[in-house]
């Protein structure tokens, strides 16, 4: 755990040193703020004191931003050869992957924490549904964690950051909307299965304020599979016959 923390501290510092963190936070706040408060179907038109609009926007902005955060994580290390340096230090491949994962998650959490004023503003305008708000933020965090895990896996597949970015989007789009679309055209067991695979279903259910174990299990399993695959890509060099 100690090692994971050291690694993620370094990663997080490099996000801020390379300005990625600032660009990401400003763009996220700018885009989600613009659509939440100023343009389109804003919070004022709904006539309800809740943050559903913001959650709906973030569902899309984070979808694009997260691959941009994770695309360099392992791709860059492979390209510059620093992965050799890192993996000959006293850390395991799991610790490397988890360190990267935790750093990206912390960055997203910082970005989400910056939207705390939204919550304060809305709660001062009317009786806000605290359950739904907590659920919404929890949902955003879980779903970010899922895309981070997918993003790190994509980054482990290549040493090219652009490829890694596009691959993360490609894998992500299935969870994001495609499974949902497919399931709406199907009935019965297949329909249910695809419906269960869709991140949207689980995100919506959590952001209504209902924290169901099935939703949590869904996100945690995708996160685990993503990290597991990244770890095996990283330790591939250790296979005796390759």
């Amino acid at each position: 755990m100690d090692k994971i923390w050291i690694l993620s501290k370094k990663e997080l510092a490099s996000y801020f040193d390379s300005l990625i963190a600032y660009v990401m936070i400003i763009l996220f706040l700018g885009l989600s703020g613009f659509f939440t408060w100023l343009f389109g179907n804003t919070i004022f038109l709904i006539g309800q004191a809740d943050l559903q609009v913001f959650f709906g926007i973030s569902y899309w902005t984070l979808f694009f931003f997260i691959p941009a955060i994770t695309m360099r994580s392992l791709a860059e290390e492979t390209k510059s050869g620093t992965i050799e340096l890192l993996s000959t230090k006293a850390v395991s491949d799991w610790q490397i992957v988890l360190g990267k994962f935790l750093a990206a998650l912390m960055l997203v959490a910082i970005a989400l924490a910056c939207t705390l004023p939204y919550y304060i503003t809305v709660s001062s305008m009317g009786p806000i549904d605290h359950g739904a708000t907590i659920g919404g933020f929890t949902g955003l965090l879980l779903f970010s964690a899922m895309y981070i895990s997918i993003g790190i896996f994509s980054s482990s597949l290549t040493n090219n950051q652009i490829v890694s970015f596009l691959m993360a989007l490609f894998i992500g789009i299935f969870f994001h909307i495609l499974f949902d679309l497919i399931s709406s055209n199907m009935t019965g067991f297949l329909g249910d299965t695809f419906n269960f695979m869709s991140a949207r279903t689980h995100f919506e259910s959590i952001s209504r304020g209902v924290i169901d174990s099935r939703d949590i299990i869904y996100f945690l399993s995708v996160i685990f599979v993503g990290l597991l695959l990244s770890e095996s890509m990283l330790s591939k060099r250790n296979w005796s016959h390759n």
Partner: protein
Amino acid sequence: MSSIIVENLTKKYGEQRAVDNITFEVQPGEIVGFLGPNGAGKTTTMKIITCYMAPSDGSVTVEGFRADQNPEEIKRKIGYLPETNPLYTDMPIIDYLRFCAEIQGMVKTEIPARIRKMVEVCGLGYERHKKIGELSKGYRQRVGLAQAMIHDPNVLVLDEPTSGLDPNQIIEIRKLIKELGKEKTVILSSHILSEVEATCDRILIINKGKIVADGTSETLRHQAQGQELLSVRIEANDDQVRKALLGLASVEKVNPMDSKPGFYLVQSKPDASSRKAIFDLCVQHKWYLLDITGIETKLEDVFREVTN
């Protein structure tokens, strides 16, 4: 107990055998130099010892730990400078060294002093506040050495440690390695023969994945030399001298040196020396013997002989 034991190590890349069934041991406090032409398997062997890659076959034991069972323990005990010296270019030197120290599990309170020591030892003083990306190649190499030594490892694996350094730095680094080698085990690779000769207690010449020579530089030279070779200068009639030299019982071959008139290259028969006989010959004929020097086989010759 040996510090490093490598047994029947083989690494295949597809059909090609980068390392082919090599076995050797390194004792604590020994400085071993890997020599070999490009692509001989030096770097691959080092990568396997440092647990970066798993071998296709065979085993590695470092400080009593097996690489396939306890890689973490080994990694903690090894300081490694990879050949390409990869570094996090966006990190400042001090932060980078601190990160390396922390990740190797050093006690927090000892880290600042250790960083100061490394900065001093590796001559990073003037540059210490820069980011690694702003450094010249030589300074990056020093940072690479500093990160390898930061946690005071028992075993140092240095892949071409002096590449990119200027002659003064090379001498300093060699001195440092010799100093370290008094108590630690050092494996270094190089293709600069004089460097290996100057720093290493023992030389392993690797070619096409196999160890082709193993020993101190003296034993290697001696093995390769076999027969005594003398450069002799005698002032007298050329033909007479050659005939007389060839007439000696211990002499096998005599060649005049083209570049220097009056000099002869005299090769003795195996396990024989012709020095005294040549001297006696000159006394007998009243020739002036102006020069008689033994020609040592250079490590270059040994290297060429075993790798060609």
